[in-house]
């Protein structure tokens, strides 16, 4: 079980990397507009079906 002494710090480092990436995204302004992207992903890029 001594693998725990290696695995736990690695897990924390990986998680910390994710957190840092998230902070960089926030600083970069990706989270400034939280209203549009949530609906934009529902919209198809190319001509979708005709309205009915």
């Amino acid at each position: 079980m001594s693998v725990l002494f290696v695995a736990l710090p690695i897990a924390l480092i990986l998680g910390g990397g994710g957190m840092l990436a998230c902070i960089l995204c926030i600083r970069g302004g990706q989270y400034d507009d939280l209203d549009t992207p949530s609906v934009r992903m529902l919209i198809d890029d190319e001509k979708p079906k005709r309205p009915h």
Partner: protein
Amino acid sequence: MTPPDSNTATATTATRERIQRPCIHCGEPSDSYSEQPAEEIFCCNGCRGAYELIHGWGLESFYGLRDQLGQGTMTRVKDESTRYDRFDSDEFLGPSTPVPQADGLMCSELALHGLHCAACAWLIENAALRTPGWNAARVKMSDHTLRIVFDPTTTTLSRIARLLDRLGYELAPISPERDSHFQNESRRHLIRIAIAGFCAANAMWIAVALYAGEAYGVAADHRFFMRMIGTGLGIVAVVFPGRTFFTGAIASLKTRVPHMDLPVALGLAVGTLVGTVNAITGEGHLYFDSLAVLVFLLLIGRWIQFHQQHRSAKAVDLLLRITPRHATRVNADETTDTVLVDVLQIGDTVRVAAGENIPVDGSVVSGQSSIDRSLLTGESVAVSVDEGDEVAAGTLNLQRPIDVRVLAMGRDSRIGKVMQSVEDAASEKIPIVQFADSVGGVFVVIVSLLAIGSFVWWLPAGWSLAASHATALLIVACPCALALATPLAIAVSLGRAAKHKVLIRDGTTLQQLARGGQIWFDKTGTLTSGRPSAELVWGSADAITVAAAIEQHCNHPVAEALVRTACGNQTESLPDAALDCVHRQGVVGHVEGLEVFVGSPAFIREQGFGLGGEVQTAIAQCTAGAASPCVIAVGGIVVAVIGISDPIKPNASKTIARLKSRGWRVGILSGDHSEIVQHVAARVGVDANQAFGGLSPEDKLAIVRGQSVDVADRTSIRHETTVMIGDGANDAAALAAADVGIAVRGGVEVSLQAAPVFIASDDLASVDDLVGASRRTQWLIRTALAVSLSYNLIAVALAMLGKISPLIAAILMPISSVSVLTVTLAWPTYPLHPLSTITPPSESNK
């Protein structure tokens, strides 16, 4: 109801049956022949143009998308696009001046009006891809801004602005004082949440491993290692993102005002201290998992609250956009330049073209025209102005250009003062009265005293045991469920209301609506549709066509109503006509060689026509029905009398009856003439002594605040909620000052920002549904509070008796939250069969 009346009146004279169906672009009810396909129904040429443009790009799926997203309809397209040339001058654009990019393209950020939902964003962004020279567009829904990337060699910004105008969106330069402060603050909040989330999640799974270890055994070095890492994560969560609670608590101590931060900071401090001591000694429970999660959840709550406050602060900013920021100044040598309103001096003269908003308060020095003051006063009928008359900023010049001498502008103008009162009214209100804030202070004092008490009580039994019991009490008494009950119930109700097309900005609204009291309705645009409709009272239907042929050259609500009635949707059938002369109360023109007069009875009389008995009866009939009579004379003979009236919305009387049966007092506050208001009041079932007409925005504000002498006896009783339902900028101050302001669709964007509730469905029945939902939410909150409070009381008692160890306390604590959550989600907040769905199909325009 007026629309069916007008139908029968027209049907008797027209050969084909006419029905009211929604305009395919903007959804306004429009006249159409029954055999016409639904996609050929337009309320005006502007909408037809926008539809054809969208169709030509192959972007028809916009309409399907819009209906699917279900957030309202388009703004009606205005038929004016002459004022976009200035989009090419940097002076006009200010901070929106295009910035050259590395690849030779220009990039500009502009404010965008008329944005409703994601479908609008989709349409604009796709329109950009189909327009040569316009390379990219990016809509930011939260700020209502648009970033445009274009190629200066093939197109100009003014051309893009004009194109968007044809679609019904209006561009404006962004204001210089854009709040980068808000953006930075929002980012800081999010970063704190990210760090706390990381710590909470990791501390959590380490805690799970430790609990499993307690149950099944764990090697001592593994246990020590995990406890150390958990402690480290907990300390990081408390020290970095949790710091904000300590600063808040210190500020609360300094000002001696109990604040939610105080119990949180106390809990965090005690938990950290005991946890650290336990980690070092290797004995007892670690609280870092609970602490990190607590910090994480509280920060999310803070962030939501922060965003709500920002939205109300933006209200005033949006109001500032009603009045134009630019004016055409007339110099001494009769030349004109476009200048910013801020640089104007009192005594300057500005020229206001027909169809433009008047930028300043002032007096007319030359020219005659009529003014649409509905924005400021809610009057449904335009007033005529002549030399020497005073005009107010924000009103719309309808007919001909006028020169205005500046008397006041900006914040000193009448609309400026109204905006000021909106600001005052908004700041008067307590932002969010949460249970935790009002009772939290008392709660924290009691819990602290109890904890100290039980510590002292158990001290003889040993320091460690006393600390353990006191900590268990602090944990189990954590007002999580208690603090969760109110916001959770409100959040769930807000979500359900949004599904019913009722958008609520402020949760306190639900609490206030549950109370009962006085509801004030605005008339124009709220109880009535706000768009006048013409109805043939006497004479031949052909006369309307002839009159409309002339009136189509005018920019006047009455003219619009005539044109709509005459042609419904086939504008091409109007005969060629020339508009000769526009008088204050009527117009003169030529159609196929015949001289045509259209105007008020007084105007027709002035022109030397005799009005016969039948005509007089028809005019009297109009006046009795609260419609403005309009007489048409062709070739020297009076041929028709038309009644112009503002039709009452479907469901209005039903909604008012329901609200009354719920115990609300219902009244009308309107800027329109008293007789019209009384007439509408009688039709919808409002008592005559509760319907007030001829009110200025200031009067409305005074009545809503309960300061008016006339109505003081009715509104001065406190503990009652005053609700204002309106839609115009004229109501903005009253909407913001009322306990609950409800903006209905079809109104100025601005009032939607001043009011905490926005009804997107344009259905008055939603008001009644909302009141019912508020009452049920109130019951839900009480039940949830009772559940969590009784839970806390029992747990605290057990903890004081030493029956609960900190470990069991940490397990019990979330159970109370779970039970509150279950009750909330299972609660039927919204009725299964709202009034709006049982509306007869004939009335709902579908």
